């Protein structure tokens, strides 16, 4: 079976961990997240006739001031940047993270706009008209609460990762 490493990043409290919580088979407890800044889960996704095992590296909340350990990005086939549509600031942080990722490594980046069950924050659209969005391969609307869009997002990630050359 093909395996792919996927990194998930985003500002604090945008719902990265919730996004995968009900969806994957997690073994290591959340303690690891606070100790070394990354929590790992795995998920098998069927793409066409073949299966892909996604190793999801859930990297702890980062923002403009606190970066992330770039080594965690090594060997990943795709990166997911999660933002929270109720907080325009999280989008700005997310775009900054995208820049940091691209500076480190040429890897497809997918933006996931989470909490789609809640109304968009005022001024979101203003922030969203940003040239930074050009860096992003695809974006998805999800709700970790209702599960809406989550499955499709991971399927798309798996397809994207399959196309990516690692290294």
């Amino acid at each position, binding site marked *: 079976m093909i*395996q*792919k490493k996927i990194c998930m990043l985003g500002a604090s409290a945008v719902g990265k961990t919730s996004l995968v919580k009900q969806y994957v088979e997690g073994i290591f407890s959340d303690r690891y997240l606070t100790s070394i800044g990354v929590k790992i889960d795995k998920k098998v996704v069927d793409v066409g006739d073949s299966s892909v095992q996604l*190793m999801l590296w859930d990297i702890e909340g980062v923002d403009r001031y606190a970066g992330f350990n770039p080594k965690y990005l090594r060997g990943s086939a795709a990166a997911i940047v999660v933002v929270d549509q109720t907080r325009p600031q999280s989008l700005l942080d997310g775009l900054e993270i995208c820049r940091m990722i691209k500076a480190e490594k040429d890897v497809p980046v997918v933006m996931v706009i989470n909490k789609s069950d809640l109304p968009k924050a005022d001024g979101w659209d203003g922030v969203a008209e940003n040239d930074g969005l050009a860096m992003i391969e695809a974006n998805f609307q999800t709700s970790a609460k209702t599960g809406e869009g989550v499955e499709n997002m991971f399927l798309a990630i798996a397809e994207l990762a399959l196309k990516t050359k690692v290294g």
Partner: protein
Amino acid sequence: MNRNTDNEASLGNSEEMLQFRQLILGKDNQLVRDAVEENARDLVADVLTEALHDRQKADGSVSGVLTPLVEKAVENSVNDRKEQFVSYLYPLVGSLVRKSVSAFLAEIIEQTNEMLESSLTYKGLRWRFEARRAGVSYSQYVVQQTFVFRVEQVLLIHRETGLLLKTVIRDKTQTADGDMFSAMLTAINDFVADSFTHQSEGNEQSLDEIKTDDFTLLIKQGPKAVLVAAITGNPPANIGSEFQKTLENIHQIYNDELNNFEGDASVFENTEQQLNSCLIEQQKESDKQESPKKIPWLVIVPLLMALSAFSYWIVKHWQLDNLLEKVLVLDEVSGIVLLDAELCDDKICVKTLRDPAAQETMSWLMSTGFSQTLFRIDERSYQSLDMKLLPEKLQRIHHDFPEIGYNQTELKFFGSISNDRFQELRAALSSMLESATVNNVLSDVQVSPQGVDERLLNQMLFEKNKSEIRDASFLFNMNEKNLVDSNAEAVKDISEKIIYTTALSKKLGQRFLVVIMGASSNDGSDGHNQKLSLERAETVQGALITQGVDPDVLRVAGLGGLGVNDDARRVIFEVIRLEPDNIEKAKN
């Protein structure tokens, strides 16, 4: 090449150099290559075997490369030409199966034996306790104690992505999630590398070993892959170089696969052979030496005990059987009829009929040399007409008729007796003896019409009763003032005698006192013994009064401690005849 270099130097940039180049690289190039290729087959054929041998000897990589090829080839052959393969293998398979089954059975027996030995020895129990205390399973603890070290699992991880390429595990039941483990270990490694980079001038740090009390993760870093060995126990320092060699070997063989890894780990299936060679272990020397001396005491001790109990039982039964034989053929004695003798539990049960005048069954058996403890006696009374018992019978009757004489040599009574008493005497004799014998015994007895002096008779009966009362005694249990149940009959008996004696004394115009004297053993303080002895006497006094004895004739006294023996705990009697003036004193 050296010659070429020399030529080049001498030719410089001259025309010849150009011609030479054209010859080698120009349109004739193909000709040169063709010539070499034509001979390539021969060239390789000449050295192929030697080259394979040398390379295999140098680093063992040839077998690593050939194994998957051969496996695949064999697989194809088996698939395509099954029938032929069956006929090839048929002669081998029978003996192979036999051999492997017997080896498997031998191993199982050996393991079971070892397990039994180790779980039933003191050490086994101690290990079980220690394992429980340490919170690990018994088998795990045994492994820790038995092996100096043991490699439990080996993982091959892609360095860049942290994805698991291949893992081999010793105990297939202990499955850890290798995928998650690989990713997590990589993350930890990244974390360590990131955390300590600044201290080492940009050189990337990486984990080499993670160690707990009895568990070691040995991590060997290669340029493309990481080999991780999970080891229990204390691995030797040089073990790392073994893993390093394996890792280098894998890098050599799978260089392209590692470089072009896109997440498909199936191409690394064949590294299993190399990784299996890392599953090494070393057993503890001391344990190997100890094993022949291991003695399962926990089994042997109960077995010995059971065996000795069984032998004791056998011997005892054998002895009892012998004894029973002897009892059954014993010569009978007068007045005892042996009805039956049989084994019951651990004794011999003897049933007899016994004349009251004959000796007791037990004393008969003991007189023949048997031990009292071996028998349980069940005897019933009967009247024996055996003449040998006559002297004893007459002696007993004479006791009740003191007014006449008894000639022991002729076995006859003599003297005179009142008519009433004569009738009593005859009745007593008739109940025991034949009438002819009764007449013979009574032939010298005269019946006086007015009877013997009644006062004299009463006096004799009084004396007889007095001595019988004096002979009586009751034993008591230690520190106990109450009568033993078995004495009830004796209390009744002595009460009747005292009542009868009281009546006689009235007829005789005499007075008497029965002094009940309690005693105790010397155990305990003098004060306590004095009190206890008096209480015992009072107990007997109460019992006698209950039976109808006149309280006026009874007196009690406590004698205190009389000695160390059990028979010191008793109550005895003294009868005092009072002269008329003594009567008045006694009343006061």
